[in-house]
């Protein structure tokens, strides 16, 4: 960093008088010879002077009093209104809500599970933190006959993070893929609920992994209990309490299993819908749940008819505390099906994000050349990791030409081939760092990453998007009613038709992705919506702004050449984002909340593994997400309500 840049970074502190003497004189010296910094100082001083003016302003007592009276009057009116209408309307509304929503009907199961589990918990006096499990089960039930994936990402930045602030976050996400019985094909629906615990862990002088994770875990539990998350709660779970419709058996230990290096105890529970619920849903539903007790605790779940499991998958990292191996529960006539390792490897649904922990164990222990196949019902993905000695080398990825064969029309993006790369970056601070990405025609379309210690492999399959209604015009798309919390200045415009995507509606979105190099980065994403499909099909083009242009003007120039996102070019300093970190761009998906809101989401994920005292320490990982704000169509204050008021289970 040259002197100008260094000094420029100090200007705000200088103006605020917060700089130590040494730096103050350095700044003053620089200001004498640098006109750019001088004028910036003037602007800063003028700004701060103006805010001083504002600070002096006050509101007179009369106005305060009248505001108080006004709110009290309004509250009184609302109270009266509610009292008169509550008893007439509520039952009808509740019933209508239940009957009109398949989701809520299925949510009935959550209530039963919750009740049974809680009662069960009382009788067994175990110390299992059932609330954690049940909350997730409750969420899961609402998508019965779907695949439903929950994931938790815990992350924190290290002390030295390229000038970025230290923060930590816990992000919980969920996605589900719904099999629509009317159309006979699977559609992706999803929702992501993020919990942030920002800036909770400061002063990480010693990045001891164990300490670090313990602190995060403790903090997480505390936050859950006290409900102090800045929660972005995307559903009103309170309705789950009073619903019914499913029968659930209690669970039992069905065996032990060695998974990798770990001994796991498998518990199983079975849940079946009542006759009424079956009639309503027209689908036999069964829920099975395995809780695997090990160092890496997971819950495995399966949905399907009593005779056949439709989906099986892992819900990851539940942190379930199971007191001992003697913990037992009972099940009457259980539909017990233990999955063999081979079966586990076959993920028979097009999951969006799948944790394939077993792959790690296999790869680490047994196989010098490991191959794993992930299938969906009609097509398959072949995924291969090869390694030589302790080093990973390039792998390969094949995807059948589904679109050409026409056997999987739901996958709206047909891929002929991929290439991908696993990089092993050596160096003082990059020891054991692994990064990888996949591109398709210079666009990042598929990504996964390997943690440095290779504890898990995340595989992200191509996205496809669906909308339950036919979309003829853009106006018919239910656009997201969600605030653009991180990036208030998103600009959305329609594009003229393109030869590349004939008949599609183009949507151009500019947004500020967040802070990098102490400044936000402008990102441009283009969506193409195909109105001829009975689902919403979106193609992503992802562009980032070149640094040279960026410095002149924050906004995109009208005729600015679009620079395709290029993973190689990111190391070029012409790019604002050209950092030397390993990084992966995940282009995720549109998601639809149970309320029917759609919101395209994107996440940029950076991962980095540092070597600390001989151990691989996962340190900086930033996730930046954005929601597209369509002219403030939602009251974003809804999202910041303290979660203590809305958590479903305490």
């Amino acid at each position, binding site marked *: 960093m040259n002197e100008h840049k260094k000094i420029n970074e100090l200007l705000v502190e200088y103006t605020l008088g917060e700089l130590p003497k040494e730096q103050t004189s350095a700044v003053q010296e620089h200001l004498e010879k640098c006109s750019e910094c001088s004028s910036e100082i003037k602007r800063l001083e003028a700004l701060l002077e103006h805010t001083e003016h504002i600070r002096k302003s006050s509101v007179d007592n009369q106005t305060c009093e009248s505001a108080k009276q006004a709110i009290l009057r309004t509250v009184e009116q609302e109270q009266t209104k509610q009292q008169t209408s509550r008893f007439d309307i509520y039952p009808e509304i509740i019933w209508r809500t239940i009957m009109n929503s398949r989701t809520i009907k299925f949510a009935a199961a959550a209530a039963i599970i919750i009740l049974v589990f809680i009662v069960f918990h009382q009788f067994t006096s175990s110390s299992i933190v059932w609330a954690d499990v049940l909350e997730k089960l409750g969420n899961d039930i609402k998508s019965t006959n779907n695949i439903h994936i929950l994931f938790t990402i815990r992350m924190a930045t290290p002390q030295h993070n390229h000038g970025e602030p230290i923060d930590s976050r816990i992000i919980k996400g969920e996605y589900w893929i719904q099999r629509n019985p009317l159309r006979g094909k699977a559609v992706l629906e999803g929702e992501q609920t993020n919990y942030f615990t920002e800036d909770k862990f400061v002063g990480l002088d010693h990045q001891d992994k164990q300490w670090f994770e313990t602190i995060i875990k403790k903090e997480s539990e505390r936050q859950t209990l006290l409900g*102090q998350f800045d929660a972005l709660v995307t559903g009103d779970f309170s309705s789950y309490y009073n619903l019914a419709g499913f029968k659930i058996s209690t669970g039992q230990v069905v065996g032990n299993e060695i998974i990798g290096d770990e001994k796991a105890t498998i518990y199983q529970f079975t849940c079946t819908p009542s006759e009424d619920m079956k009639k309503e849903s027209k689908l036999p539903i069964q829920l099975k749940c395995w809780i695997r007790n090990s160092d890496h605790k997971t819950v495995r779940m399966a949905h399907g008819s009593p005779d056949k499991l439709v989906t099986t998958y892992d819900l990851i990292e539940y942190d379930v505390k199971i007191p001992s191996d003697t913990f037992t529960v009972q099940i009457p006539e259980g539909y017990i099906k233990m999955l063999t390792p081979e079966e586990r490897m076959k993920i028979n649904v097009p999951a969006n994000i799948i944790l394939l922990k077993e792959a790690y164990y296999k790869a680490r222990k047994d196989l010098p050349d490991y191959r794993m196949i992930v299938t969906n019902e009609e097509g398959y993905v072949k995924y291969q990791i090869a390694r030589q000695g302790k080093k990973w080398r390039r792998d390969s990825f094949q995807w059948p030409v589904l679109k050409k064969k026409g056997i999987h029309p739901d996958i709206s993006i047909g891929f002929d081939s991929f290439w991908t790369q696993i990089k092993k970056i050596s160096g003082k601070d990059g020891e054991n760092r692994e990064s990888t990405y996949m591109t398709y025609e210079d666009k990042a379309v598929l990504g996964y990453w390997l943690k440095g210690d290779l504890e898990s492999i995340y595989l992200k399959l191509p996205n496809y998007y669906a909308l339950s209604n036919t979309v003829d015009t853009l106006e018919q798309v239910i656009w997201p009613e969600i605030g653009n919390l991180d*990036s208030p200045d998103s600009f959305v415009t329609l594009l003229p038709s393109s030869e590349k995507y004939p008949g599609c509606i183009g949507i151009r979105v500019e947004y500020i992705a967040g802070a990098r190099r102490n400044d936000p980065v402008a990102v441009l994403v283009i969506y193409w919506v195909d109105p001829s499909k009975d689902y919403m099909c979106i193609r992503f083009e992802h562009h980032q702004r070149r640094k040279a242009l960026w410095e002149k003007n924050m906004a995109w120039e009208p005729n600015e050449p679009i620079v395709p996102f290029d993973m190689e070019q990111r190391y070029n300093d012409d790019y604002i984002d050209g950092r030397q970190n390993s990084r992966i761009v995940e282009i995720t998906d549109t998601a639809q909340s149970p309320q029917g809101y759609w919101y395209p989401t994107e996440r940029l994920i950076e991962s980095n593994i540092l070597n600390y005292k001989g151990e691989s320490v996962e340190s900086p990982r930033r996730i930046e997400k954005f929601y597209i704000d369509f002219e403030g169509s939602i009251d974003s*204050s809804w999202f910041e309500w303290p979660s203590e008021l809305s958590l479903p289970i305490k």
Partner: protein
Amino acid sequence: MQKISYNELIENYSNVVLRTAARILGNTQQAQDVHQEVFLEIWRRWHKYNGRTNWNAYLYRATVRSAIRFAKKSRTGQFIQQQPEALANTSNPDERLRVAELQQKLALSLAKLPKRQAQVFVLSRIEGLEHEKIAGLLGCSQKTVRVHLHRAAKRLARELSDYLIE
């Protein structure tokens, strides 16, 4: 944390909310609207309140957020007509106009900032709170506060340059 009644909440915090909103928006009428919105929303969820909310922190956040949203909504419609009261004593009409315009633009620019940056800037420069206090209110470190303040100030100064330097 002691559980308080809704009336007590209004009694204790009404002035803070109104004052903060007025400073951001430069307009007491709009500040009253924000005040109404913030407290009405709380009342609608009051039955879920269990006594653990840090109202000081929550109300600061909610007020700043609500006021900024208000400013954003006003971007295309009518905006501040009333001059900030802080300027009442300024004798020069041109200066009054310039400062009033600057305050409008500041509110709009705040709306463009990332939420946390805007919050930190308002709490620090407009409310005059110490870094430590802000860190407590927003649940972050003082260092983070400084970083956000740094970024917010630089960006605001850049965006408002036409109004800041004559």
